[in-house]
């Protein structure tokens, strides 16, 4: 549910979607062409009620942007942030180099309530 919302938010962000070439994948990526984005739910905290089921869910969704350079990864992540910040809360992030794929990764974690 929150992963689908993340995907919808990314698609709706035209600048991001163009920069990423439409390559945003849940869980894993084909690792074929950079840049690309991968998102996944890494934690879920439900707001339970006594008699009305689950009122809402607060999910931590990790968004990883992979690019050929660190600057490119950070730049595309900044584009994503322009729209995500109004629908979710940024709770953490970091930049790293992925030795296996020789790419740079900007990782951010967003709290999305659905």
């Amino acid at each position, binding site marked *: 549910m929150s992963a689908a919302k993340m995907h919808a938010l990314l698609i709706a962000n035209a600048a991001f979607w163009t920069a990423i070439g439409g390559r945003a994948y849940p869980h894993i990526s084909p690792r074929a062409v950079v840049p690309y984005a991968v998102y996944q739910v890494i934690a879920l905290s439900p*707001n*339970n*009620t006594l*008699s009305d089921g689950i009122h809402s869910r607060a999910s931590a969704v990790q968004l990883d942007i992979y690019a050929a350079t660190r600057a490119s990864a950070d730049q595309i992540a900044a584009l994503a942030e322009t729209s995500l910040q109004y629908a979710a809360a940024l709770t953490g992030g970091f930049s790293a180099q992925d030795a296996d794929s020789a790419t740079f990764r900007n990782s951010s974690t967003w709290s999305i309530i659905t």
Partner: protein
Amino acid sequence: MSDKALKSQRTQMYVAFQTGATAFTLITLQDVSAIPNIGNPTKAKLDATDLDSVAKEYVAGLSDAAEMSLSYMLRGSVNQQRLRDLDGSGVISRFMICYSENTTQPTISPTTGVFTAPIGRSHSTFSAYVSSMAFSVAVDAVISGTIGLQVSGSVSTTIVAEA
């Protein structure tokens, strides 16, 4: 052992909401996440020490039911709106909390608002007015708050015996 535990999930709280001088309707409180201090009356401590006493002596005074502070999550439902209507009005309403043995609703008299408990379901009944209804807004959270219910009189609880 645990199969005999009375679970909190599916506990429901009802109000005999007064819609006219002699007209009541049953409403269910929605999106409540916790109901602390059900019952739990404190009694006044009356000093009965006299000159013959060798130590302080006391007798119990009247019970004073604690204010309940329900946790809830805000939504735009009719039933939550009705409770907001009660907030500040000072109207004392009848409440019934039904526990989780089953989900049968209680019934009320449409003219007096007196509850009839569902069969086989433990329950607590009391009269109270809504003393406060506030919510908090914070980053990265749903809007949630508390409903203060000041009990007037005593809380009567019936726990259904195990089969």
